[in-house]
């Protein structure tokens, strides 16, 4: 698997993901870091548990990087997702995208996190104060009609 896309059970080193995309042609790096939030409205999370179909997840993260390269000129992307038990404020995901100019970097990293929530086989189990549940909303607060990736999305591996 491409070294820029990986699943890990260890704490994520943000700088390691950034280092994968630093290069002389780039002037801008946008990163997105997803951390474990304690409260969702008034519901309190004690910790999270992430599970992945790791080999496929790495493939799908690579696919997202390939989609980004096709959409925005001269980008380089790294994505790392942690699995296992994560406590409050632990880093669950880091996306880093480098581009020559900054607007593309912002758009591409935003695209990456949306796509992760659509096609990467990783699941989050919330351990609340009052029980547990696997979270199934692919896009959190947004409700989408389309639950299954389009044919194009599925074959674009």
């Amino acid at each position, binding site marked *: 698997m491409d070294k820029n896309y990986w699943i890990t059970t260890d704490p994520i080193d943000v700088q390691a993901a950034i280092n994968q995309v630093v290069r002389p042609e780039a002037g801008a790096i946008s990163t997105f870091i997803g951390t474990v939030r304690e409260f969702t409205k008034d519901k309190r999370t004690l910790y999270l548990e992430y599970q992945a179909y790791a080999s496929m997840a790495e493939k799908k993260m690579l696919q997202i990087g390939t989609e980004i390269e096709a959409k925005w000129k001269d980008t380089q992307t790294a994505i790392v997702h942690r699995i296992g038990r994560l406590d409050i404020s632990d880093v669950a995901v880091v996306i880093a995208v480098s581009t020559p100019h900054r607007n593309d970097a912002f758009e591409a990293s935003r695209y990456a996190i949306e796509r*992760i929530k659509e096609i990467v086989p990783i*699941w989050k189990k919330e351990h609340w104060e009052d029980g547990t549940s696997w979270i199934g909303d692919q896009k959190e607060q947004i409700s989408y009609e389309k639950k299954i990736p389009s044919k194009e999305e*599925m074959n674009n591996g």
Partner: protein
Amino acid sequence: MVDLLFFAELQESVGKEKISVEAAGMTVQELKNTYLRKYDIQNTENVMVAINEEYVTDNSILVDGDVVAFIPPVSGG
């Protein structure tokens, strides 16, 4: 034989990460009907299926040696 992988709440319903079954020639839809219903899994229309790590449609046909993953709605990130 075909390997079936279960994740997240499906894994908990089935009680196993993986089972091996005779399913060559079946469609994905038939596989869902047989094995997800067996474990009382509802909302099977929300479950995506991957064969050998690529998403497939419900009318795809299985061959011996395939690894089939049942993928409930993802929630990474």
